[in-house]
Structures are given as C-alpha cells and as structure tokens.
C-alpha cells in the first residue's frame, strides 16, 4: 500500500537518544516523510543531560558531562547540527562546533601514597590525528588484534622503561634493545613459519628470563597479533603466558616505595593479564568478540588471568569504575562492570580517540548540545510538547489481533502538567550573553495559573510531584503511527505496565538492567586553583575519596556566567549515591528533599576532611575555608552567611528521579538488554543508553548510537554500517 500522508512518529523524552532519533528522521533526505513530535515532562530538553541557568546565570548541571574523543557518532551528528545552524546564522555564538568545546588532555587518577597522603598521577595524553566525527578512511578501524598489538607495544615501552629504572648497569644493552625494537621491527616481513619458530625458540631455551629475550618476545607478539589465524592457538597461548610469567618473575618481587615505579608496574600487570585473558578465552576468534566475557565481572576476570590484588585496587582500576559509576546500588563495596564492555570502553577510550581524549563543553550541556538540536528540529518542522508526562503505553487487546499480527501500541496516555497561556507553544530558551540557554526553572509567566504553580512550588521534573492540569490520550493512526520510547529504563516500570505484564523479556530487562542514583556538587570559589594549592594544569581527575571521587576543573565556564564579583575557580564533583533498602513510591513527596540534604552533608564532610589532599591551601586547622565560596547574592555587601552555612549558596543535587538514574553495565546483565531494532511490537521501538546498542555503557555515545538505531528501525536509515562502533569486537 502506498502511503501518501506523512508517517507520524511520537517520541517519548528528549534526551540524547530521542533527540538523535528525531534528528535522523527529519533529515532533508527523507523529504518530509516523517512528522515527528517529542513529548517531554517539564520545561527543558535533555533528560539526564539537561542543564539550567541559575543565579548569576551560573550553569547548573545534573552532574559532570564530558565528551570523550571516541564519541564518533555523537560528534558527527553534533557537527552536522552546528553546520546546519551555521549556514542560516553564521554570526551566532559558537557557530563553529570547535568553539563550543575545550580539549582536555590532562587527565589523572589519585592513589594513596606509600609515604602517607595521596599522590596524583596525571598525564597529558597526546593529541591524536583528526577530530572526532571526521569521516573514517579505514575500512576496518576496529579490530581486537589491533588493540592487543597496541597493548603489546605499550607493554614493551613500559618494560624498557622499568628495566632502565631498575638496573642501571644494563642500560647500555637496554638502549640497544630500545633502538632495535622501539620502532622499526624487522620482524613483520618474516614469514609466519619463521616467527612461530622464534616463539618456540624463546620458550624452549628459557630466553624469556633475560631482558633481551622478553623484549624480543613482545616485539614478536605485536607482529603475531596482526595475523592471528596464521599461528597455532596453543603455541600463541603458551607464548603469551610465557611472556607474562617472565614479566612477573622479573619485577613482582621487587620492593620499592617509589610511587611512579609502582604505578607503572600496575599498568604492566593489568595489561599483561588482559593479554593472557584474551588468548585464554579465544576472544580474537570468538564471533561474539568481547561480549563473550560479559558474564564476568571485569576485576574478577583480570584477577583470574593473573593480576595482583595491588593492581586490581590501583588508581587505574578505580578510575575506570568511577568513570562508569560501576557500583551496584551505589555501594562502593559492590563494584560491578561487565568485563567485555569494560575492556571495550577502555580500548575505545585509549586507542581510538581523535583530537583529544576528553572534550569539555564551553557552557552547559543543554546550551551546547540540546539548544542546537532543538533549533534544528524546530527548523525542520518537528515539535516538542513540553509539560507532557507519559503515564501509560497502552497495547492493543491481544484477543483482537489478526492471525500473525504482531502486538502493537494502541494508545499513549499522558498527564498534562501545565498548559500554555493563549494555547500556543512554550518558548523554552533564555538569552545569556548572546547564547540561547535553558533556565533552571520554568517560565511560569507563560503558563496558565503559572503564579499559583510558582507559589506552590510545582516541581515538574520530580517523580514525586504528580500534579497535573489535564490528561491527554493519543491514538494509533489518528495521532501516531510509530512510537519511540526514549524515557530511560527507570521509567519503564511506571509507564509500561501492560508490556511488563505480558512480556518476560521486558521483565528481565527491568530486573537486570540496573541503574544507580548519583550525587553532584558544584563550587564557585574566590581563589584560583594555584592559590588553592593545586599546582598542576587544569585537570579531570578520578579515583579519589568516595563519594566525590571525580573532580573536574571547570574554570573555563566563568566567562559564560554573569557574576557581580567573578569567581576565580569552578569545581564539579560527582559520583554514585547509595540507594535506601526500599525506594519509596511517589506518595513520599519529601523523599527528594531528604536525599538532597544527604548530599549536602556528604559534601560538607568531604570538604572539611578530604579536599585538602588536593587543594592544601583550601583548608586550615578548622577544616575547609568556607569564606572561599562565592555567593551571587552578596554582591559586595559583605557575607550573607558564615562557616558551613555558606555552602547553601552553592549548587548540589541528588539525582534520584527514575529517569535521572545512571545506567550501569553490571556483569551478566547485558544479555537482557533489548535492541532498538527489535521488532516484537511493530509500531514501538526503544532508544537510550540502556538498550542493546553496541556499546552498553551509560554515556552520550551509547545514547546517540541507540538513537540512530531507533531511526533505522523505523526508516532503515542510517545504514547500520554507518553507525560507527556498532560493529565492533
């Protein structure tokens, strides 16, 4: 049947995934085939990525949002979005996407020092060629053998460094080794039989006990990894195990209090274990790729393959888990990360970034990401219906389905939280220094009975505030043809009851695909980082004390805010927030406030007792110097508050709403995710970083990949091969 009318698509939510689905479906190439409407509770786009502007136009985020240099899909679409806007208005602020980001090459982790206190190990990661989102010119950019070859090369470099450090009298021989094996390896042109013979020779004659033998072996391994099928598997495994045993024999017993040596050794230990594990589990030949080990917990898998406890508890492992908020139920004693996805994330992050490893936004995520998408979608004719909270996805009666007909969504039931005066559309954006931004509170002046809502403090984004002014039911064919559910897995139990009642896969999904609450703090201070005692360059640092183990220096945002007295430093902190034994339902309306108070107490304790390790000049004998904090309401009139009470002028939040919870990649759970390509309900697809999208981690890139998959599910575009990293080991 030829369809003349536009295909109506209703998208629930406006986070990254939903916005991208809308962006893909409204491409000019589709020639208006899809009529897209997004439904969003509250007043702003963005979901977990939404940001606002508060007092002094200060940026107020859900947490810390940093884009990684391997976010190929996310950057690519954002660049297209900016280009589309730039064509229409080249004079706008941040017309060029590169103006909207700051490269962050300075990244670090923190470890307790053997001499007491903490030592920060920071590194300036070198710029990589190209920019994220550039067209990929390699036909097969992601191969596990390439990753492992780079790991072997990394191991070789680190070992050479450690050998030199350990035994000065061998430095002459080691310099020769470094020259010979450091770059141009003459081994690649050797035929496989010759290389295999070399491996046997090294194993047989015990040559791995020598530094020279070990370095040669690693050079061989790097070559071998490029052509795995050529070599017998048992020989490869013996070879890798032989190398790793020799490495450990050389260094494990070496006692030192040198922090740098210890940290380098921990990296060697971890990489060695990963190499052994890759061969033991035959990952290079397994059609499932890294998914083959997703039932293992990442640390546990590395432990099984020989890493020491010291390495497993190193700052690097803790940093990896902190980045992924990988603590089940928000409990630091329950770290949980699926091994395959953990390794996939690590190799993508370290080996495939372009430009810079981290990219910080120059304003709030809402301003930099969601404003452009909102504007482009509006230009293309898509609509965003704010103040619409989905209450129920209603399925067609299964008794009325024709033989062979798939189940489908019959209706969508919404609570209308507010209506717009005059019946028009809500204008969500405000201007801050020429930049269109999202405010931290709705514009009540645009709302019918807005003054009453303001006085009664209606919280449109809170799961525990169910107030509404009306309801709305949308029906299939009349109002929509397809539905894209992008409201996050946390919303599923509340909005998809009928699906859960009938579909065991969905029940498994909500049981296993877990989320975690998070807490975030933002500080504005009157002294810069150097004055506070942090002498290193601006940094993003992790693996520090819980609960605020991750700190990002956000000084670059000062110019985007409008302070009467400008602060000299901005610091963001975040991490998990433990769940209570039972999360109360929405009748416990005081619950969010209690959790917010808890975060406040956590932050004050953290600042009084721990921040001094990083900012020694920020504390004195009484604890944190509260006078450092900048209060936008003071405006030169003298302090409004003293001591801890000054903390109340800062910004903090407890992300406890079901849709704000961070999606985790716990071991044994990824197989329960459902793909946006799943066609069980033939007019419903799902989208978000909680879906089976090829990169099962809570992050912008996963959300964008999922959004593109959801668009493919409806329109068969973009081609799956065009979703960078979807096809990946």
């Amino acid at each position, binding site marked *: 049947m030829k369809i003349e009318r536009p295909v109506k698509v209703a998208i629930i939510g406006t986070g990254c995934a939903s916005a991208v689905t809308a962006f893909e479906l409204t491409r000019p190439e589709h020639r208006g085939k899809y009529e897209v409407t997004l439904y969003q509770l509250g007043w702003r786009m963005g979901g977990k990525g939404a940001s606002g502007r508060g007092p002094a136009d200060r940026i107020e985020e859900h947490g810390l949002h940093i884009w990684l240099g391997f976010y190929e899909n996310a950057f690519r679409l954002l660049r297209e979005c900016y280009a589309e806007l730039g064509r229409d208005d080249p004079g706008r602020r941040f017309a060029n996407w590169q103006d909207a980001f700051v490269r962050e090459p300075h990244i670090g982790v923190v470890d307790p020092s053997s001499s007491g206190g903490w030592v920060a190990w920071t590194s300036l990661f070198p710029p990589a060629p*190209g920019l994220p989102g*550039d067209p990929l010119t390699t036909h097969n950019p992601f191969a596990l053998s390439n990753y492992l070859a780079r790991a072997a090369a990394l191991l070789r470099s680190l070992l050479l460094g450690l050998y030199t450090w350990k035994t000065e009298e061998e430095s002459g021989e080691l310099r020769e080794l470094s020259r010979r094996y450091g770059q141009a390896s003459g081994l690649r042109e050797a035929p496989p039989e010759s290389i295999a013979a070399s491996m046997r020779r090294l194993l047989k004659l015990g040559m791995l006990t020598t530094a020279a033998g070990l370095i040669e072996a690693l050079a061989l391994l790097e070559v071998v990894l490029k052509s795995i*099928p050529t070599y017998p598997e048992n020989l490869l495994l013996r070879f890798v195990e032989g190398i790793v045993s020799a490495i450990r024999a050389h260094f494990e017993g070496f006692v030192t209090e040198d922090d740098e040596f210890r940290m380098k050794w921990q990296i060697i230990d971890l990489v060695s274990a990963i190499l052994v594990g890759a061969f033991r589990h035959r990952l290079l030949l397994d059609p499932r*790729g890294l*998914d083959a080990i997703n039932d293992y917990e990442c640390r546990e898998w590395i432990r099984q393959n020989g890493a020491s406890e010291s390495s497993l508890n190193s700052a690097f492992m803790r940093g990896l888990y902190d980045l992924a908020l990988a603590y089940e139920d928000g409990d630091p004693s329950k770290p949980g990360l699926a091994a395959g996805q953990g390794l996939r994330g690590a190799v993508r992050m370290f080996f495939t970034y372009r430009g810079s490893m981290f990219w910080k936004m120059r304003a709030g995520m809402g301003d930099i990401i969601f404003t452009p998408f909102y504007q482009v979608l509006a230009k293309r004719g898509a609509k965003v219906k704010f103040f619409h909270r989905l209450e129920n996805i209603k399925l067609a009666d299964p008794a009325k389905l024709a033989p062979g007909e798939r189940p489908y969504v019959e209706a969508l039931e919404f609570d209308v939280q507010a209506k717009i005066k005059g019946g028009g559309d809500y204008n969500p954006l405000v201007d801050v220094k020429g930049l269109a931004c999202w405010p931290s509170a709705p514009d009540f002046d645009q709302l019918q009975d807005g003054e009453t809502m303001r006085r009664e403090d209606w919280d449109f984004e809170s799961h525990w505030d169910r107030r509404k002014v009306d309801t709305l039911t949308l029906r299939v*064919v009349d109002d929509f043809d*397809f539905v894209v559910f992008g409201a996050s897995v946390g919303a599923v139990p509340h909005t998809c009851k009928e699906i859960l009642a009938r579909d065991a896969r969905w029940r498994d999904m909500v049981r296993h695909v877990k989320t975690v609450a998070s807490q975030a703090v933002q500080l504005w201070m009157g002294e810069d980082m150097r004055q506070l005692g942090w002498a290193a360059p601006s940094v993003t640092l992790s693996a520090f004390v819980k609960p605020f183990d991750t700190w990002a220096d956000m000084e670059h945002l000062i110019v985007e805010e409008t302070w009467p007295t400008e602060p000299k430093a901005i610091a963001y902190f975040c991490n998990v927030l433990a769940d209570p034994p039972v999360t109360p339902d929405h009748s416990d309306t005081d619950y969010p406030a209690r959790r917010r108070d808890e975060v406040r107490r956590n932050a004050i304790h953290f600042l009084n007792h721990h921040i001094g390790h990083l900012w020694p000049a920020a504390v004195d004998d009484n604890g944190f110097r509260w006078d450092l904090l900048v209060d936008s309401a003071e405006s030169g009139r003298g302090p409004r508050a003293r001591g801890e009470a000054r903390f109340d002028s800062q910004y903090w939040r407890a992300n406890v709403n079901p849709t704000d919870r961070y999606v985790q990649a716990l071991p044994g759970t990824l197989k329960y995710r459902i793909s946006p390509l*799943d066609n069980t309900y033939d*007019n419903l697809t799902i989208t978000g970083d909680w879906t089976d999208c090829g990169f099962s981690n809570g992050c912008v890139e996963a959300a964008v990949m999922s959004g593109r998959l959801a668009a493919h599910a409806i329109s068969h575009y973009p081609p799956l091969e065009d979703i960078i990293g979807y*096809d990946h080991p």
Partner: protein
Amino acid sequence: MTKQERLHRQDPKRAEPIRNMTGYLRNSHSWGETPPGEESGKDGEGAKAQETVDDVLTHGVNLGYKIIDEHILQGRRVADELRQHRLGDEKGTGSEVNALVARLLGVTKDVGALWLDSLEMAVKSPRLLTGLVGGGRHPGEAAAASPGVAGGNLSIEVASVRRTQVTLNLPPAPQAYTPQVHALHAVDPAFPPLTGVSFQAAAGSRRPALLVEIPDAQPPSTYTGVVVDKETNEPVGSLVIRVLA
C-alpha cells in the same frame, strides 16, 4: 480509521552488531559523506610521520583497503544500475555494466600485487634496514648459487575442478635462487589456506614449475602469498591465485 491503515515496521536486515571483525568491510558512504581519501581531518597538530616499516606497511595496507572500498562501492553502483535498468536502454546499460565489471576484475587482481609490492618495497628500502633485527644479510647480497630461478620461463601446472587464475610476479633477479612459496591466505580467516602450492622441477625437465593443487572444497576467493628465496627466506615475489565459483 480501519486497522488496515495502521503502519507496520519492516524487519531490518539484521538486528545485531557484527562482533567478528576479521572479514568486515565498512561502507563509509551515507547521506552525501565524502568518499574516503577526499576529505582529511583538520589536524592542526599534524606530527610528521617517521618513515618506518610500520608506516610503509600501513600505507600499503591502507591503499589496498581503499581499493577494496572503491571495489565495493563500484560493485554497489553496478548493482544499483542493474536494479534501475530501464526497458529500451538495454544496449547502453549493458556495455556500461560490462566496462564496470571488467574494471572490477582488474582492480581485484591488482589488490594482492599492490599489497605485496608494498611489503617488498619496505623490506628493500636501505633507509628502513637500519637497526632491523636478525643480523640477516642485506637483500642485495647474493644468495648461494644454486639451481633455481634467474628469470626466464617457468611453467605452471594447475589441478582444480574449478576455474582458477594464477598470477605469479617474479621480477628478474641478479642471481639464481630457489623459490619457495608459503601457504596462501584469503582475506576471510575462516577460509582454509591454500597449502598445495609449491615449486618443483617440472617432469622431465630441470626448469622449475609452479604446481598448484586446489582442493575441491576450497571456497572461491582470492588467495595471496609471498614467494621467498628458500635459502634466505627473503621475499622475491608474489603469488595470487583466484579460485572462481
């Protein structure tokens, strides 16, 4: 509105990612994206690459991959043209398609040779030989004299139930050497290597012959390998065997 007007999603071609990457080739073209090679990233840092074996090989490999990408793209164009074939325009479309197909076959034949030429160039470059391991002799050094190839005629014997094309590239050498060929491999590692390939004295003759034996169950593909000097194991040429369907 009746139920018949309700739209249905069509099943996608696949619903899972490809995790086994060994044989995967990506089509980088979509929505007007510039074909590979025509647009470079704006790399302001641009460190100049050192000329190492790795770089030369990478370049050769990338060239090979670009040719494969172009091959696939042209193949798709051919397929699209065939799908859009219009009645009454058979003659023009047919000759154009034939030209494309002929080009594709030529490109495919050249890929293996190009790749191995890159390897050969890398090995023989004097600059790249500095610091190479092995204490082996300079490729320019003569191998011990032994009966072998020194240019001239060489016969090829093929035993196969299927049509097979053999391309042997043995540039003239200053000294005689005994050629040896290792197993030939296809791009797809799932395909078994071709091991029934060897140089032997032709029956009743002192001249060498290349013997190619293709098992009946060998999957159709292009198999490539290195011809080496048996004495020194140094590459001296290349061999491409195409087993046709």
